């Protein structure tokens, strides 16, 4: 009975939602036609090429135009790591080691050893080239964290130092915030670009964008590795398949 009611309710909600969005249209300019409306995306696209010299417009929005959002996003991740630690916290003597029955076969271990440095390199490539190609600090950080996940899976006694993680994380976060504050130099504003912008499609272009992305990459990598490590160390009360 409850199911039927819920399905009916959802059908109504879905119908209205679909009606609204189909009314907006797909693949067309959906903004209201008026002289007053100048969608900001056009300004973004124009400024990206002309003033910032960044190839990837998404990057320029994420890091420069709306860099404050990214600061918030990084904070959300930081908070969720903290929240995870605080929720899953147990007193020291309750906490167990990682419960590994036996190690992976030598093929997997050797393979992870071989693939681990290239995965790190791929992550580094993604966040260094964030302003030139798809990707950026966040994605690069995720890739690096996934590399660590591979090592943690393959070696039962592979450990990541918690202190090292939090040091990296803190330094990266501080770098981001300090770069933001350095924008106040020369009478600027928070997060304002203070470096020369270079030329389009060059590695050294976009002013502070690559630096911020590198900081974000390190931070995200450290945070997500922390998440993985925390949950991997979590030991269930009951073992089952």
């Amino acid at each position, binding site marked *: 009975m409850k199911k039927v009611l819920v399905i009916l309710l959802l059908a109504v909600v879905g119908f209205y939602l679909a009606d609204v969005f189909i009314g907006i249209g797909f693949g067309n300019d959906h903004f209201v036609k008026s002289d007053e409306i100048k969608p900001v995306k056009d300004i973004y696209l124009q400024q990206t090429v002309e003033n910032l010299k960044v190839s990837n417009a998404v990057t320029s929005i994420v890091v420069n135009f709306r860099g404050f959002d990214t600061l918030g996003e990084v904070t959300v991740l930081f908070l969720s790591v903290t929240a995870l630690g605080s929720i899953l916290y147990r007193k020291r003597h309750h906490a167990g080691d990682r419960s590994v029955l036996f190690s992976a*076969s030598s*093929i*997997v271990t050797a393979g992870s050893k071989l693939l681990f440095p290239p995965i790190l390199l791929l992550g580094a490539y993604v966040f260094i080239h964030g302003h030139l190609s798809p990707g950026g600090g966040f994605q690069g950080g995720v890739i690096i964290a996934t590399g660590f996940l591979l090592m943690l899976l393959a070696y039962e006694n592979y450990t990541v130092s918690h202190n090292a993680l939090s040091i990296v994380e803190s330094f990266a976060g501080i770098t981001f915030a300090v770069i933001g504050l350095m924008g106040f130099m020369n009478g600027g504003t928070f997060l304002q670009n203070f470096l020369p912008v270079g030329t389009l499609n060059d590695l050294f272009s976009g002013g502070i964008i690559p630096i911020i992305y590198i900081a974000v990459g390190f931070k995200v990598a450290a945070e997500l590795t922390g998440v993985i490590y925390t949950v991997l160390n979590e030991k269930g009360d009951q*073992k089952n*398949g």
Partner: protein
Amino acid sequence: MTYYEIIGGILITIGSIFLFLGGLGIYRMPDIFNRLQAGTKATTLGAMSLILGVGIMEGTWEWILKSFVIIVYIAFSNPISSHALARATYLRGHRPYIKSEDKEKMDAYREVVENDPKRKEVEV
């Protein structure tokens, strides 16, 4: 139409055929190990040749280098993952489908699993 495009087209065709065969293989085979056999081999070669074909079709060295690195990754990672999967399945207690009569002899791995106290089958 240049030679690049012809070679690339041929490679793409071959690759897509093998990808299709991979899908068909994992559909038709009787048990998980045979499915892995079909899935791994056919899709690996399929993906490799298709990606190389795309690289050659575009014909610039950037494309070829990039597709080459994807190929290398796939060639290394795909067998590892299927190996890990096969081992996991076996250790979980699935025995391969064996057609012939002599079941003991055809399953050489069983002795290892059953003799090793550490490697007891995972309790459910």
